[in-house]
């Protein structure tokens, strides 16, 4: 029973990582109706910047804030320079561009910072959480940060005119222009904010999994699964989805089939749930009349 509890808690910790990436995906989806496959690599690259700054003597929080600014600027720039010419291109062409971006950023991380892993500091105390062997204080802190980001995103989309305009721009650019929304900047802003959220996710993930160019590669996959499972148009659902994926993975590995097929089983379960509930557990079904 204790072991079971332990598995669940450690799953929650991993799930927290997925949840934080899922939030970045929700952000970009709400703002552009696209799933950016390069999101994880952008987060990794931002985390490298933070590492570089801390390594050269910046205090943690200064580096943290500067990294957020950096990630925002990078996000906006990528949108303006690389993605923008493709807004009229077919969806799959855009997907190909995202794949290209993923390869470029991943490769650059490796070329600039090489492939050996780097330890990344945590802003939280380094001892275990209240002496508990189950969760470290960083893991608890990370879950807390994720929930905070979630609350911010939720409030942003729900209560601010800018959030509303962003959702509108993603859904229907033509109509958005007709109500005076500057669609181009909304999309760029969405990329910038998603970049920032990704950077937070990266800086929270790195102390746990260590920093290397592939740090976010698989995290993105599970974050994506979590976001879809919970509902990609719903930040709460996405975060919950992330936690579910984390716990599910652990339990599947520990109790169902053994570790060698753990990924397979977890994915089969996720896809199975989606087949039954095609818009995610908490996603809204968009009804359009014919």
């Amino acid at each position, binding site marked *: 029973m*204790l*072991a079971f509890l*332990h*598995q669940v808690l*450690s*799953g929650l*910790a*991993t799930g927290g*990582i997925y949840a934080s990436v899922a939030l970045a995906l929700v952000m970009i989806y709400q703002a552009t109706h696209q799933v950016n496959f390069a999101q994880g690599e952008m987060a990794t690259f931002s985390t490298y910047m933070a590492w570089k700054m801390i390594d050269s003597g910046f205090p943690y929080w200064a580096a943290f804030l500067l990294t957020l600014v950096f990630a925002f600027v990078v996000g906006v720039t990528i949108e303006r320079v690389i993605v923008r010419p493709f807004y009229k291109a077919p969806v799959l062409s855009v997907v190909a561009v995202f794949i290209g971006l993923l390869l470029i950023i991943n*490769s650059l991380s*490796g070329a600039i910072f*090489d*492939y*050996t*892993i*780097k*330890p990344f500091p945590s802003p939280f105390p380094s001892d*275990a959480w209240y002496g508990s*062997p*189950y969760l*470290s204080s960083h893991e608890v802190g990370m879950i807390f940060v994720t929930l905070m980001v979630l609350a911010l995103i939720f409030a942003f989309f729900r209560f601010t005119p800018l959030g509303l305009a962003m959702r509108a721009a993603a859904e229907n650019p033509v109509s958005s222009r007709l109500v005076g929304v500057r669609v181009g900047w909304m999309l760029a802003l969405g990329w910038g904010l998603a970049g920032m959220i990704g950077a937070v996710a990266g800086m929270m*993930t790195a102390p*746990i*999994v*260590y920093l*290397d*160019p*592939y740090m976010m*590669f*698989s*995290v993105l*996959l*599970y974050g994506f699964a979590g976001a879809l499972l919970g509902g990609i148009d719903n930040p709460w659902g996405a975060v919950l989805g992330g936690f579910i994926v984390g716990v599910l*993975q*652990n339990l599947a*590995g*520990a109790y169902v089939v*053994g*570790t*060698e097929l*753990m*990924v397979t089983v977890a994915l089969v379960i996720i896809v199975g749930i989606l087949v039954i509930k095609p818009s995610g557990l908490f996603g809204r079904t968009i009804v359009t009349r014919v």
Partner: protein
Amino acid sequence: MRFRTSLLTAAALLALAGPAFAADAPGVTATEIKIGNTMPYSGPASAYGVIGKGETAFWKMVNEQGGVAGHKIDFISVDDGYNPAKTVEQARRLVEQDGVAFLFNPLGTPSNTAIEKYLNQKKIPQLFVATGADKWGNYKDFPWTIGWQPSYRTEAEIYARYILQEKPNAKIGVLYQNDDFGKDYLAGLKDGLGDKYAKMVIKEASYEVTDPTIDSQVVTLQGAGVDTLVTAATPKFAAQTIRKVYDIGWRPLHFMTNVSISVASVMEPAGVEKAVGLISASYGKDPTDPTWKDDPGMNQWRDFMKKYMPGADLADASYVYAYGVSLTMLQVLKQCNGDFSRENVMKQAANLKDFELPTVLPGIKLNTSPTNYHPIRQMQLEKWNGKTWVLFGKVLGGAGS
């Protein structure tokens, strides 16, 4: 012009197709030897690409120092993305298009497996392959393929014998990467423990390279009551394992694969104090271990790095590996005495006698013969004391194959 080139290519092809005479020496001209190599410069195993870069720098150094017996080395290293299908294509490019004399240190177990048959059929040496699998000493079936480093299986066998001796009632758990590398450790433990394996190994847990963490696996192993842990994980996961084991207050007797004992890229990220008591076995010197700070052998390597790979990460043990294996290759070329035919190169590769490398542990010597295709078959156990690895016991030879 074009026509001529294709004629020349055709001629080269004809030469390849015919029986190889020593005098033909494909890939060798009066002034040059062409050596081929495949590496994962792209894809998930790109971390190993630095080996290829180190080797390229090494041959540049050799050429600047005058080459081998009046021959410059044309080292052609190409990307296979760690995809065996691509390796096949690239190996054939190297042989048929570029006309290399032989392949040196192609990386990856599946990649080498994919080209082994082709190269042996064509009687092209596949020298000092960069993989720790055990199969690379099969001189009977594949006389043109030779390994270099001690196999993972040998290493695991050493751990198994140590456990049998020191802790005969151990409850062993294995944490392994779900690929050829990890599974070789399972095989080695089976070799070493024999029929006790089923009783002693009470839990096996694997992870995928795509898993973000191994927390769940560590918890599972602890939960199963394991008191002796053998970890076959790459550096990132090794560091995670050491830290997680410590953090959950678990103190098993912990063996760590030789792949992941770098001070800079495993011990320090994991937390040097969390790794105290960790046992491993090694054959090479760790560039980040203070023990070798003033070691003349390692200084030789450092000089090379300073001059030919400025700016490279000196903590990366892959460069030490590249240097060591290249030195071995150089020795073989020197032994060839000017006859760089494929037969002679292979013959000399299988004729190393007590060759010593500056980058391997003192007392370890490289030996090969027509019936011994395992150049390095010795390792020494070592224990982490919180600051450095402390060697203990004798230099051990695996029973090997």
